[in-house]
């Protein structure tokens, strides 16, 4: 038999035994293709220019991101393949004792990996191409565009990219695993794997101590994440504490497991003793892999549930910050590039008329406002995370004009009062501002003292903007601003009625609009429209959602694979053990029960802790999100749960089924 034939036979055999390995390779390749082909999907869609540019950006982002993902997938393949090789050490040992040369054995290994690679590459690409057709529909829905007619999308470049990336991964796999077998002593190959790991599980007292420490670490990291320390503690410390806590938790758990072995009433019942020993014989590998799996699951759950939640919240926030159809903001740039340089105030409507721009052609209502410099009037405000506000003065009549255009109730001020308007509404800022207002916030302007109070705090958005607005606006009586320098001029525009033709007229008339002030400053304008903001919102939702799902699914597959492979790699030892139990008279129900318990513990323990982690993680994300508008956790959590049930649960069942089949074949082979 030639090496190629031998390798092919082994692959066929592995196909039966190692469904999980192929599942992982195929999944990995499929996901990689689907996400990397997003750029090509726009061919079937009718996209606006901003949507098209978002797609380009998304494509690039995913491209960069894929580098990171491919590193993870590569590790996964090496890990999975390593187990495959480990399991077959004995077979390789046999080839060597039969006088085969190391080179020949290596060749078999190379050929096997290549065959498996080719098959899974083909399967993964086919699956990916099929799935990406459905993905076009999802993309279209997220971007809010229609697909005119169904067209088949085949991303040739992505196919090539996938092949290149995964060939590299297979090459690395070969490099590591062939090397591994090449270095092994014959004796190690033949007697591979029939020995218990030296037990490093801690003794009961120590385990209790470690458990306390673990709980402490986890509690500290949750507390920092959620509690008052949020502003102060760096994310790195929280992550380090969380990871350490997780490791210690499973380490202590292994100790408790061993202690359970002393409780005779539990231990000497049914096959409990056997199951416990199954776990303890691999205890060192178990707690390390459970830690890794738990952390990967945590990342996966968090990205799947809060990723989408964040995307939605961002979208909601952005829609919120489009109170008019459009705004034009005029400002001067300083010589060294600084923004919002002080200048003599200008009436933009008048300036536009002078330049021959007919604002009424696209604006049903329009109002110009001057935002004056407020430097030194009040102390600078700083947020919890060190973010600085931009201070402006706005006259009461300009402010009320803006409110009127938004259909909001107007503000009235006494002669010695001023109001504070700040767009963001979260609890932290409210606290800072209320505290400030309660002190009276005395300032001197136009030769008199002005004071404010908590009843004069407002939270309106005054401009159309695609980013978080930290403008702090002091609204003052009209007569107090005369003679001050302006920072920016803003024109609020509402179209006569909604319609793309006004949008086009507006953009055509105002883009590139410039004004020279009385003191010689060059003001340049920038227009932002509600339509742009809404597009941008939809696009960022899509972008974040894609990245979240991509990362979430990859981590989910990775964690499930690590577990599944770990379990199945013990299959040959397990077959031997379970068929002995069968001979001793344990029936199918007992055997399947023992196997199920064993696999359930491996899959369940990390998931449970990861869920606890995730509650903390998601709450923290939710807390951050409430600052900019809040997010709906429920819907996205259901989605995350669905993914977990589908992928993680699928792997669990696949592992149990193939384990059961392997065992059954082992003990049924004698009966016919």
């Amino acid at each position, binding site marked *: 038999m030639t090496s190629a034939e031998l390798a092919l036979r082994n692959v066929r055999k592995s196909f039966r035994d190692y469904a999980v390995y192929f599942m992982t390779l195929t999944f990995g390749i499929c996901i990689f293709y689907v996400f990397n082909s997003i750029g090509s999907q726009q061919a079937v869609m009718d996209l606006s220019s901003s949507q098209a540019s978002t797609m380009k950006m998304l494509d690039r982002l995913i491209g960069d991101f894929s580098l990171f993902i491919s590193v993870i997938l590569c590790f996964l393949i090496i890990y999975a393949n390593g187990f495959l090789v480990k399991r077959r050490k004995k077979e390789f040992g046999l080839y060597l004792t039969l006088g085969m040369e190391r080179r020949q054995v290596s060749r078999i290994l190379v050929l096997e990996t290549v065959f498996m690679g080719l098959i899974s590459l083909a399967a993964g690409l086919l699956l990916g191409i099929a799935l990406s057709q459905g993905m076009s529909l999802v993309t279209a829905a997220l971007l809010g565009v229609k697909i005119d007619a169904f067209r088949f999308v085949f991303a040739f470049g992505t196919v090539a990219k996938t092949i290149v990336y995964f060939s590299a991964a297979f090459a690395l796999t070969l490099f590591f695993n062939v090397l591994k077998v090449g270095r092994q002593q014959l004796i190690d190959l033949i007697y591979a794997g029939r020995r218990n790991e030296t037990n490093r599980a801690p003794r009961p007292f120590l385990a209790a101590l470690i458990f306390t420490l673990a709980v402490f670490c986890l509690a500290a990291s949750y507390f920092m994440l959620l509690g008052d320390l949020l502003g102060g503690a760096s994310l790195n410390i929280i992550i380090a504490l969380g990871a350490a806590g997780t490791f210690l938790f499973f380490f202590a758990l292994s100790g408790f497991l061993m202690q359970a072995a002393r409780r005779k009433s539990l231990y000497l019942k049914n096959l409990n003793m056997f199951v416990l020993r199954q776990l303890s014989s691999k205890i060192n590998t178990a707690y390390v892999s459970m830690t890794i799996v738990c952390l990967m699951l945590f990342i996966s759950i968090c990205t799947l549930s809060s990723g989408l939640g964040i995307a939605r919240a961002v979208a909601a926030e952005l829609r919120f910050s489009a109170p008019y159809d459009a705004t034009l903001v005029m400002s001067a740039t300083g010589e060294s590039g600084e923004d919002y340089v002080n200048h003599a105030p200008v009436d933009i409507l008048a300036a536009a008329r002078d330049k021959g721009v007919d604002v009424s052609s696209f604006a049903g209502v329009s109002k110009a406002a001057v935002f004056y410099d407020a430097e030194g009037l009040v102390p600078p405000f700083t947020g919890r995370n060190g973010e600085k506000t931009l201070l402006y003065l706005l006259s009461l009549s300009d402010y009320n004009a803006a409110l009127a255009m938004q259909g909001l109730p107007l503000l009235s001020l006494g002669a010695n009062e001023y109001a504070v308007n700040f767009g963001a509404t979260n609890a932290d800022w409210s606290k800072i501002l209320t505290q400030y207002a309660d002190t009276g916030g005395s300032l001197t302007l136009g030769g008199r003292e002005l004071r404010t109070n908590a009843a004069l705090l407002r939270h309106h958005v005054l401009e159309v903007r695609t980013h978080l607005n930290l403008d702090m606006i002091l609204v003052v009586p009209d007569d107090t601003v005369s003679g001050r320098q302006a920072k920016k001029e803003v024109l609020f525009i509402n179209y006569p009625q909604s319609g793309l033709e006004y949008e086009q007229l507006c953009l055509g008339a105002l883009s590139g609009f410039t004004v020279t002030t009385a003191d010689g400053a060059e003001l340049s304008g920038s227009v932002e429209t509600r339509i742009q903001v809404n597009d941008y919102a939809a696009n960022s939702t899509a972008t974040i959602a894609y990245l979240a799902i991509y990362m979430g699914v990859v981590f989910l597959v990775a964690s499930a694979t690590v577990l599944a492979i770990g379990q199945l790699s013990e299959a040959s030892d397990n077959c031997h053990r379970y068929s002995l139990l069968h001979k001793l*008279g344990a029936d199918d129900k007992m055997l399947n029960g023992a196997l199920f318990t064993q696999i359930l513990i491996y899959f369940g323990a990390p998931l449970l802790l990861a869920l606890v982690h995730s509650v903390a993680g998601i709450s923290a994300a939710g807390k951050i999100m409430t600052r900019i508008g809040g997010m709906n956790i429920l819907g996205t959590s259901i989605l995350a749960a669905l993914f977990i049930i589908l992928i993680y649960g699928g792997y669990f069942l696949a592992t149990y089924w193939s384990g059961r089949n392997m065992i059954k074949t082992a003990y049924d082979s004698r009966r016919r």
Partner: protein
Amino acid sequence: MATILQAKNMEKYYGNKNNLTKALDGISFSVEAGEFLGVMGASGSGKTTLLNCVSTIDSLTAGQILIDDRDITTMNQKMLARFRREKLGFIFQDFNLLDTLTAFENIALALTILKKPTKTIESRVSEVAAVLGITDVLDKYPYQMSGGQRQRVASARAIVTQPALILADEPTGALDSKSARALLESFQNLVRTRGATILMVTHDAFSASYCHRIIFIRDGRLFQELVRGSESRREFFDKIIEVVSLLGGDGNDLR
């Protein structure tokens, strides 16, 4: 004396019409309670097949096997599993201990599969361990024991449930002569003091000489039967050698 095992016209065929192997070709025999029966034969004569069929691990093509008056050839899988754990004890040539379990746990396993109350388990394990002289290795793992100790642990596992019939396939096959002798003596001891019934397959005349009675098989058929009666072990051994040479062909290759 009660008959524990009654095998009638056992037939086991492998392969198809063109290429038929008659591993068992109409063998009938019986085992009485408290008997130590040996089964001998050349390699390929059907010894292991016979034992596997009796032990319900393999099924017959035709024939009947009654153990404790129950016909095992008509039982389903679940009944067979139950039958095995309640009525049979196994001793294998390669010990077949679980490498993840200590000696104590390996022996206790047979009782936990039987769902015996946990309180009684410890005392029963230490009792059989004392009988087989393995009390001081109870906390060791299989890889920390010698071959002889492992086989005695396996024997302890087989007898701890007080089975109606103990089945042993070449139990001394992997042991040196000193350990083999010790094991066979403990078998003798079990039969004498605890009334155990043992069916032992062996290719080794020395091991066989410890039996009360020996059946010889050739090509799947019963060839001859020897009863020790009141003879000394030495005399019995010589008789066995005689029959073995009669078995013919390569009489020395008796595996």
